[in-house]
C-alpha cells in the first residue's frame, strides 16, 4: 500500500546527506570533544563546525548557540535558567496559553514554587496582540515567552512587534521556534529575541538534539550540572553524532529554505482549498495567511478525529488530531480550546503537515480519500442528523 507521511510537525525523515555526514562519527571519529588528544580534538572541531552552521541559519554568533537534547530541554532550560538567575529582579513571567506543553508544564511547575505567570489572550486565529504584552508587563516581569509559530494551527506570531514592546523594559524575550527554524526565515536580530529554542528532528536532522540560542549577556543558570561542556552552560558529554547531523540539517535548510517554502505553499493551499470545496461543514483552524507553509489544520463537524485518523491510516495516510480520544489525558487540544473552538469541534480536528518530499499526487490522494471517510463517518454520527434538522 502507498504510504503518505503528512505529519512533519511531529517529526521529519532524516535527510540522507545528514545521515552521511553523521556516519564517520559513530565508530571512526568517536572521540570525546573534552579530551585533548587527537580523537577529542577531531570531535571538538566537528561540533564547532556544526555550531557555526546552526548559528548561520538564524544569523546568530556561534558562541551564542548551546546544544541541548531538543526543543523540550531548550524550553525547560530557558524557564528554569532565567527564573532562578533573576530571582532578585522579579518573579513574573508572561506567556501564552497556546505554547507547547514543553513550555507550559515548566511554567506550571514554577507557579507551584511561587512564580507568577500571566497567560496572554489569543484571538480566534491564535494571534497574540502585542498591546496585551504591554499591558501585562509589571516591574517584576523577568521573561516574556511567545512561540514563533504554533505547532498545531500553524499561526505565525508577531514576534518582532512583541519584541519592540519587551525591549522598552529590561525583560528577557524567548521564543519557541521549533516549528519555524528551517521552515520560514528566522533571523535573531529581526525577531529581537534573547533566547530561541530549536529542535533538530523537525528540520530533517536526527532526534535527540537541538539548541538554545542565548544572546550574549543573558543572565541564566545551567539546567544540567556536572561538566564544563557548552561553556559551562550545559554539562554532559556532547551528543557528537547528533550535533553533527543537526549542523548539516541546518546547512541544508539554509540553502533550500526558499525552495522549500515555494514548494510547500501551493501544496498547502491546494489541500486547504480542496478540503473546503469537497467537504461541507469544515473550518480551517489558525490564520488563513499568516501560517506555516507546511500546516493544514481543520475541524470537521459531526465526526471525531481519531476515527478519521484511523481510517486515513488504513488508507496509508499519516496525519494527527487534537481530539480528546487520541490523547492519553482524554482532554481535547488546549490550543484549539484557547482559540475558542467548542470541545466538540476540537474533537473533530485533523492536522496535515507537509514536507520536502510531499508531492502534488499525495495531496490529490488525500482529497480523494478524506471526503469519502468523512461521509462514511457522518452517516454513522448521531450529530449529523440533529444539526441538520
Amino acid at each position, binding site marked *: 500500500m502507498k504510504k503518505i507521511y503528512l505529519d512533519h510537525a511531529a517529526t521529519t525523515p532524516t535527510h540522507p546527506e545528514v545521515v552521511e555526514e553523521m556516519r564517520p562519527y559513530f565508530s571512526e571519529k568517536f572521540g570525546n570533544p573534552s579530551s585533548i588528544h587527537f580523537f577529542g580534538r577531531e570531535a571538538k572541531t566537528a561540533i564547532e563546525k556544526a555550531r557555526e552552521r546552526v548559528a548561520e541559519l538564524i544569523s546568530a554568533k556561534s558562541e551564542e548557540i548551546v546544544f541541548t537534547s531538543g526543543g523540550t530541554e531548550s524550553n525547560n532550560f530557558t524557564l528554569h535558567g532565567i527564573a532562578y538567575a533573576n530571582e532578585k529582579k522579579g518573579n513574573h513571567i508572561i506567556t501564552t496559553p497556546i505554547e507547547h506543553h514543553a513550555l507550559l508544564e515548566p511554567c506550571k511547575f514554577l507557579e507551584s514554587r511561587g512564580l507568577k505567570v500571566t497567560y496572554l489572550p489569543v484571538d480566534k486565529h491564535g494571534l497574540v496582540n502585542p498591546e496585551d504584552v504591554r499591558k501585562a508587563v509589571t516591574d517584576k516581569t523577568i521573561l516574556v515567552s511567545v512561540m514563533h509559530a504554533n505547532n498545531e494551527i500553524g499561526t505565525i506570531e508577531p514576534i518582532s512587534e512583541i519584541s519592540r514592546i519587551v525591549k522598552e523594559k529590561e525583560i528577557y524575550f524567548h521564543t519557541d521556534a521549533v516549528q519555524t527554524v528551517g521552515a520560514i526565515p528566522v533571523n535573531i536580530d529581526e525577531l529581537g529575541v534573547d533566547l530561541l529554542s530549536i529542535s533538530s528532528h523537525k528540520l530533517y536532522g536526527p532526534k535527540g538534539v537541538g539548541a538554545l540560542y542565548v544572546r550574549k549577556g543573558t543572565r541564566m543558570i545551567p539546567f544540567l550540572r556536572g561538566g564544563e561542556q557548552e561553556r559551562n552552560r550545559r554539562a554532559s558529554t556532547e551528543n557528537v553524532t547528533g550535533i553533527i547531523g543537526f549542523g548539516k540539517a541546518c546547512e541544508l535548510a539554509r540553502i533550500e529554505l526558499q525552495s522549500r517554502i515555494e514548494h510547500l505553499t501551493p501544496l498547502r493551499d491546494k489541500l486547504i482549498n480542496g478540503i473546503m470545496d469537497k467537504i461541507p461543514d469544515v473550518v480551517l483552524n489558525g490564520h488563513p495567511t499568516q501560517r506555516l507553509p507546511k500546516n493544514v489544520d481543520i475541524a470537521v463537524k*459531526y465526526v*471525531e478525529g*481519531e476515527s478519521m485518523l*484511523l481510517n486515513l491510516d488504513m488508507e496509508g495516510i499519516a496525519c494527527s488530531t487534537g481530539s480528546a*480520544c487520541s490523547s*492519553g489525558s482524554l482532554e481535547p487540544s488546549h490550543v484549539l480550546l484557547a482559540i475558542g473552538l467548542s470541545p466538540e469541534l476540537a*474533537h473533530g480536528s485533523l492536522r496535515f503537515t507537509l514536507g520536502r518530499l510531499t508531492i502534488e499526487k499525495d495531496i490529490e490522494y488525500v482529497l480523494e480519500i478524506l471526503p469519502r471517510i468523512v461521509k462514511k463517518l457522518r452517516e454513522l*454520527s*448521531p*450529530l449529523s442528523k440533529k444539526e441538520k434538522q
Partner: protein
Amino acid sequence: MVEYTEIVLDHFKNPRNVGEIEDPDGIGHITSPVCGDIMDLYIRIKNNVIVEVKYKTYGCGAAIASGSMLTEMIKDKTIDEALRITNKRVADALGGLPPVKMHCSALAEDALKSAVDDYLKKTTGKGLEGWKPGGQAEEHEY
C-alpha cells in the same frame, strides 16, 4: 494512537447495525462523561426479546467498534439476558480494549440501559431499576 485488536479494527471498518429504527420501542442516548463521545441506540422488542437493534456513534474507533459489537451481542436476546452484558463483556468480545479506551465500552453498555429504560417507561410507566440518566461510569468494570 492506541493499539487496537483485529476484531476492533474489523468492527470499526465495517460497523454492524448502523442506523435508526422508525418508531422504535426504546431509544437510548448517552454522552460519555469521560470524553464527550455520543451513542444513540434504537431497539425493537417483541415478546420481551430484542428483535431489531440499530446504533449511531460520534466517537473514536473504540466507541464505533463497541457499539457495533454490543448490537451483535444483544440481538435476539431477552431484555434480561441483554442487561447482563456488561461493558467488560463487550470489550472481551472485541479481544480487549486499551485501558484508556475502556470507557468507550461503558458508553455502549449505558446506551443499552438507556434504551431499555426508555422502553420500560413507555410500557410499564417505570424505568429501569437503578438506572440514572447520564450513566454511572464508575460502576463499570475496567
